[in-house]
């Protein structure tokens, strides 16, 4: 073949290597895999290694001193394993927190599933009045962080036993609420349920809305009663959604930190997450990470169950076609009673917490709810202003809107969220590309698995590992201790499961042939990305960006250990103020954060509404 001579440069092997390596999904996949290995796999390995080796601070462990062990940092040891699982500390450090976590997590999961499912049914399937408005308001707890509710709880039910001033309840009724109402599992479960019911609500109402009511009508025509229809048709159809909401809520609830910290730590009620925090704070990283490993195992098991139980059944929820009509159930005389109950619930879950928090920010002296106690100091007061009793207000601190520290924190929060969400959105699309287009290859599986892995890490432990890993020089990376970059890295890594899911599902919607049609006329990867992939994934890109923005804004557990005074963000400032008993400041900043989160969500809604326009819909 004379014409083929022109190809005979170099060896076939070289040509093959060059060609394989120049496939875009391969290059991207390999770069991403290297990054994932560095920022996900290595921290995971570090977590395990730290659990089974000595660190310098282990010199002061009683076991080490008693047995006269010579501590060589980095050397293998089972001493942490022994301390956590087989010593007299075990019950205090592991078993009790494990029990507490189980109680809290199961409690909040069951309660929030019940609330979410009932609300979803009422909103989607009945003629409840003002359904649209109710559905929108019911989403609010999902938008704001989970722990402001716990702060509001304290405002309401704090008793004087722990110190500081008591809450509204005691003020009004002059009775100190018992400890079990003020602190511990009961308030933690209630507060978290008021946040997490939103998962069940969103998932189950989505599934209910996709059921063709003809399926139910057919059963009714065949003689099934309303209860039978519910049991035999509706429930089995939404069961996969219910199960997956259950598991999502469970694994989210297990790792939650803010609320158990605010409502548990004052009475030494530890869950696994707050126990990890305590251990890390006490320089017991090895012990902490072992507990983290237990949490990772539990999370993995729930996900495994999710796949096992739901995997095969998930499919038929989506079978329902488009143009069907859903017949709402007539609630009859119960209509207004149920409506009143729902409104009451939403008042308690949504408006009351925000109202109480706002109120508290206007109180000069905490715990005095009379009008004479009203002050704007905590918002706009001058530094060093004196209160009515002639004492310094807020120990001389200015109101948050006059405090340059707050502005710095707010700016840091925004800067962090913007950076993280921008990078997360880009990485999400690239991950989606590498995973979907390279499907079936080891590279694709590697990217998929590693990008999902941070999901099962408790945020607090992930943050702790990053802190210890990147505090010293790591290969080409200099020490990042106390830098903004470390915050970005850890937040970005923790966002990867969501980004890669968003990216993959966006990429899955772009049929391969749309890209190939461009390949045929000579478009390279960059052209295809710019002219086809990006325009078609844009809406996913932007809403993914905004979702990352909001969740980074409210992130606490992940960065609470990492943040240093130089780069503090709003959430950690709230944590410190509340920890120190400066509730007015903490609440005021919380309100600031809530307003920012809500603003962001309204932006998402506006954007999504606009972008679902013509062209891209198909």
């Amino acid at each position, binding site marked *: *073949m004379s*014409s*083929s001579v022109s*190809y*005979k440069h170099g060896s*076939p*092997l070289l*040509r*093959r290597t060059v*060609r394989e390596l120049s496939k875009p999904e391969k290059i991207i996949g390999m770069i991403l895999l290297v990054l994932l290995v560095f920022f996900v796999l290595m921290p995971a390995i570090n977590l395990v290694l730290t659990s089974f080796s000595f660190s310098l601070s282990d010199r002061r462990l009683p076991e080490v001193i008693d047995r006269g062990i010579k501590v060589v940092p980095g050397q293998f040891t089972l001493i942490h394993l022994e301390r956590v699982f087989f010593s007299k500390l075990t019950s205090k450090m592991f078993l009790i927190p494990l029990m507490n976590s189980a109680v809290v997590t199961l409690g909040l999961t069951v309660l929030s599933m019940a609330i979410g499912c009932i609300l979803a049914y009422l909103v989607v399937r009945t003629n409840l009045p003002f359904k649209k408005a109710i559905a929108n308001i019911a989403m609010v707890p999902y938008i704001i962080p989970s722990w402001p509710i716990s702060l509001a709880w304290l405002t309401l039910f704090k008793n004087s036993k722990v110190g500081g001033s008591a809450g509204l309840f005691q003020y009004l009724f002059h009775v100190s609420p018992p400890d079990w109402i003020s602190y511990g599992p009961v308030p933690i479960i209630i507060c978290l349920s008021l946040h997490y019911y939103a998962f069940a609500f969103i998932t189950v109402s989505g599934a209910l809305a996709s059921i063709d009511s003809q399926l139910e009508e057919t059963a009714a025509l065949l003689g099934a009663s309303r209860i039978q229809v519910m049991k035999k048709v509706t429930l089995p159809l939404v069961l996969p959604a219910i199960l997956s909401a259950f598991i999502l809520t469970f694994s989210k609830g297990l790792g939650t930190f803010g609320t158990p910290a605010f409502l548990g730590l004052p009475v030494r009620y530890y869950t696994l997450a707050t126990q990890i925090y305590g251990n890390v704070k006490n320089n017991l990283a090895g012990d902490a990470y072992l507990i983290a490993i237990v949490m990772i195992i539990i999370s993995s098991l729930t996900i495994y169950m999710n796949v096992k139980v739901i995997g095969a059944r998930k499919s038929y929820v989506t079978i329902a076609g488009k143009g069907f009509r859903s017949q709402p159930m007539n609630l009859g005389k119960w209509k207004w009673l149920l409506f009143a109950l729902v409104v009451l619930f939403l008042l308690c879950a949504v408006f009351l917490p925000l109202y109480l928090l706002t109120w508290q920010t206007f109180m000069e002296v905490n715990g005095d709810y009379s009008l004479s106690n009203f002050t704007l100091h905590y918002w706009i007061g001058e530094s060093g202003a004196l209160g009515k009793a002639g004492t310094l207000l807020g120990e001389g601190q200015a109101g948050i809107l006059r405090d340059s520290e707050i502005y710095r924190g707010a700016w840091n929060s925004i800067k962090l969220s913007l950076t993280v969400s921008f990078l997360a959105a880009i990485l999400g699309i690239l991950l989606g590309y590498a995973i979907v287009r390279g499907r079936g290859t080891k590279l694709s599986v590697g990217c998929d698995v590693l990008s999902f892995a941070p999901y099962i890490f408790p945020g607090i432990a992930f943050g702790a590992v990053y802190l210890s890993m990147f505090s010293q020089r790591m290969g080409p990376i200099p020490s990042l201790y106390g830098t903004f970059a470390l915050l970005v890295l850890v937040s970005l890594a923790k966002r990867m499961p969501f980004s890669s899911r968003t990216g993959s599902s966006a990429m899955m919607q772009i*049929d391969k*042939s*749309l890209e*190939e*049609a*461009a*390949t*045929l*006329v*000579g*478009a390279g990867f960059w*052209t295809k990305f710019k*002219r*086809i992939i990006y*325009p*078609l994934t844009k809406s996913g890109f932007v809403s993914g960006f905004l979702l990352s923005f909001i969740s980074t804004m409210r992130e606490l557990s992940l960065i609470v250990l990492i943040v240093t005074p130089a780069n503090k963000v709003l959430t950690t400032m709230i944590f410190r103020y509340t920890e120190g008993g400066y509730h007015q400041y903490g609440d005021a900043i919380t309100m600031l954060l809530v307003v920012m989160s809500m603003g962001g969500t309204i932006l998402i809604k506006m954007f999504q509404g606009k972008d679902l326009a*013509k*062209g*891209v*819909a*198909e």
Partner: protein
Amino acid sequence: MSKNTKIRVENLTKAWGKVKAINNISLDIEDGSFITLLGPSGCGKTTTLRAIAGLEEPTAGKIYINDKLVFSKKDEIVVDPVKRDIGLIFQSYALWPHMTVYDNIAFGLVMKKLPKDEIKKQVDKILKNVSLDKLGERYPNELSGGQQQRVAIARMLITKPGIFLMDEPLSNLDAKLRMDMRSEVKRLHQESGATTVYVTHDQEEAMTMSTHICVMKDGVIRQMDSPEVLYKKPADLFVADFISNPKMNFYDAAILHEEGKTYISFAGIKILIDPETVGERHKVKVAVRPEDFVLDSNGGEFNVVTQLPTGPSQILNLEKGSEDATMVSPDYIRVNPGETIKIGVKKDSYNIFDLETEKRIF
């Protein structure tokens, strides 16, 4: 290689792990021909097409286009699709939903970095050609299926490829439109003279449009011939069965030797044959096309089960014990369900297959 070979495929194999989508196939496609790759789903026809286009990298073999080696596994040569002189219509059309009809068609020229006014001139001309001249500013989802199809055709034509590749382009259209588009595609082929490789699982589409049909199964080519030869002389049982509508009739037939003559006998029908055809065999498979059954007073007696008028003719479903027969007959033959008729086979209008190899022996 003959002078007018446009595409040549040599010993091509594409394996996904252990599964071979195409297994060592070779094809010579003449310049200007319309060749259809026909077969059931999963037979490897689309993979073959995509390998020619350069969208799929085979695991062994060679491909030449215009006498130029564009793929060779041994030499690790893979020429980019854009340099293969091809245009492709995807089954889904693959129109970019975020681009207007105009932009969809213009894309190939934009890639060639042609000046804007030149692009406009060419796109406008082609839009007129496919009667879409008023719809340039529309988006694909604002068009009907047939219009989308024409956009896909226009997008393929715009770069003036010497080879058209079409992957089941009509399968998403309704029956009426499909008939119209068949003639449209055939006209396109006649006017442009471009070599066309067409993939379909619809044997009627293949029969009506192609100069050559290549029947594939399980990644292997079973027969490649003109539609006529394929219909009259199917290479094996699979091809005979696949190329038949209404269904071809198959019978296990015995070989009878009576008074020095050799017959095949099935369902009460006896046909005199040349003894050399069957050799030492005692049994064979006989295939008769529905239109090759005729009324014959010496033939086999069948019950009429149903009678389906199709307008110009009628389809009779017949039954005789455990055997049945489908017969297409002129509509002037008046029969009613429940009646019996006697049928035989038109002279030499049948095929005989070996039972073991399933290959045609007559």
